[in-house]
């Protein structure tokens, strides 16, 4: 295999730092620049953790007393990228919007099928500091879970069970949203541009080498709003587990992602 064509994550080096910021002197934006090393490292982590796809949960059934539980569906965090010929990642806003709509629909119907009441999170109430802190804390705990449960070599030596909590300090959040659980879904996908596909065919014919294609990553987390406990968590990294731009395939993706979801 010729060494000149690297899979896309490494080729992105040529694009670093990204030019979202036109700076005055150094061109830096707050926390926006990451080093090439870090990016390569992140992709390596993706690759090594690609095989680990265990669902973690501390409950198997939702609390029903006796009404069906109300599950707050948080705004889906989705970004869909196109990989250019040279390996640059370009966020496609139109694909992203379509995917978000698809995902929100299929998540709601999946919850209904599970005899739960989906509640849409109203962003207007986001102004409350408590909400923001709740969302930010969930982000931090989620990152810790991915590191410690899904990344080889980073497992906590004395933590055998799946026990993670945001704490029960978010009382105003609880009363504002009037729900029992909150569901967070995160999704990233990368699709090769037509030019990249053609280049891939070309290099395959000439050198027998196919440049890297995109990965799909996603995670979902269910929080018991009253206790703050993360009761169910799943993360997937694959070439593809369902193109979320398509409503039917989005349904497959969500089914896979929500496997072993509490009944």
């Amino acid at each position, binding site marked *: 295999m010729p060494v000149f064509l690297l899979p896309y994550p490494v080729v992105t080096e040529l*694009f670093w730092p990204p*030019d979202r*910021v036109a700076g005055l002197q150094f061109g830096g*934006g707050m926390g926006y620049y990451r080093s090439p090393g870090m990016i390569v490292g992140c992709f390596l982590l993706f690759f090594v953790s690609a095989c680990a796809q265990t669902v973690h949960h501390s409950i198997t059934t939702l609390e029903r007393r006796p009404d069906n539980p109300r599950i707050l569906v948080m705004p889906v965090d989705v970004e869909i990228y196109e990989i250019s010929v*040279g390996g640059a990642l370009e966020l496609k806003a139109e694909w992203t919007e379509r995917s978000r709509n698809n995902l929100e629909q299929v998540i709601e119907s999946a919850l209904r099928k599970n005899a739960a009441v989906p509640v849409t999170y109203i962003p207007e109430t986001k102004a409350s500091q408590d909400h923001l802190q709740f969302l930010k804390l969930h982000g931090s705990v989620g990152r810790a879970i991915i590191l410690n449960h899904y990344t080889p070599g980073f497992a906590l030596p004395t933590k055998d069970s799946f026990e993670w909590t945001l704490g029960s300090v978010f009382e105003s959040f609880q009363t504002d949203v009037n729900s029992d659980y909150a569901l967070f879904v995160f999704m990233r996908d990368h699709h090769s*541009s037509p030019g990249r596909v053609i280049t891939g065919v070309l290099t395959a014919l000439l050198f027998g080498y196919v440049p890297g294609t995109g990965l799909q990553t996603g995670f979902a987390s269910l929080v018991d709003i009253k206790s703050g406990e993360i009761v169910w968590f799943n993360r997937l990294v694959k070439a593809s587990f369902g193109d979320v731009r398509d409503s039917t395939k989005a349904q497959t993706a969500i089914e896979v992602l929500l496997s072993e979801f509490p009944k």
Partner: protein
Amino acid sequence: MIRARYAVYAIFCLGLAACAQGDDGRNGGIHAGFPPVRGEKSIDETSIMPGYRPELETMEGGIWSQVEKLEEATKTSGKRVTDEKLNAYISKIVCDLAGTYCSDIRLYIIENPTFNASMFPNGMMHVNTGFLLRIQSEAQMAAVFGHEIGHYLKRHSLKRTQDKHVKANAFVFVQIGFALVNAAPLGDLIRLALQGSISAYSRDQEREADSIGLDLMVKGGYSPGAAPEIWENLFEEGSKASKGLNYLFFGSHPLPRERIESLRRQAEAMDLPVKQRIGETTFLEMIAPFREGWFQQQLSQESFKESKVVLKNMAPSPLYPGELHFLRGELIRREREKDFVPRAIEYYQKAIEMDPDDSRPYKAIGLLLMKTKQKERARTNFHSYLSHAPQAVDRGVIEQYLKELDK
């Protein structure tokens, strides 16, 4: 024979590179559909229109949606300076400079000790506290804000991303070409050349933004002489720094020397307003309550040579007459070089002489002396601190120190 092979491959590469360009060009044309704004030099037909929003399908739409997410994070960031009065004051200056684009530019003051301001493609502008700490006037602020608004008007981020994409796409085919003739390592040379050319493109944009900035600030009635001043101060600081700012080939921005000379030349050739605003007094009054905090953050960088230049360029505070002496004492205390205790105290005392009501130097002396034999002097200074600042947030801590000193 070999030469013929090269030629074939070269043609092949060029053809594919052209395809790649077409592939990237689906943003609907950068300059298409914008009627010219007449009678303006810096705002012309290549500028963005007021109230502009890109289509979702375009590359620009993707970039904007990414940056909008970043803006949401900025709004709630703990690093944001949220003081209403300061925000209103600086936003007003930005708004006046931006004119018809006022509502398109949104200012965020960011707690960050480095000298920088940045414009994001969607009109979000970050201004670091390290920048506000280093400048002296509204006119200097206007020079930099004008420059940043220039980036927005000319969609520099988008163009730079497109430039990079086109060059990187072409590079893939160059690599294929070289591999076909068994000369793959030559590809590395081309990569270097491309990186150099990407940086050169960026420097051209900076020059364009500098010109627009100058134009906007003069239209706003400011003295254009303030623009090169900023770079002179920064140049002095940079020359004291351990790592110099002088690298050109890969530099995204022109060298300070070049910027100073070019700004001076351009300023001389301009029709200037009769009455030119500098706005030193108001600026100083507005930032005075925050300056100590910002300078402390600068000190936390532990680059004391640069901090000395920063301090030297600071004007006396209208709030605390002795503040510059106090800050000099803080610099010496944190630098921890030989005899720093008596040397720092000397400056704290000078600060107290000039302004006996400023509580800060008393506390600083107390903290320096409480671990030495001069316990009595430490105690007196802590008491003075508490009597001058009875509402101090660290009152409990100081009272605890006083108890320990009594033992």
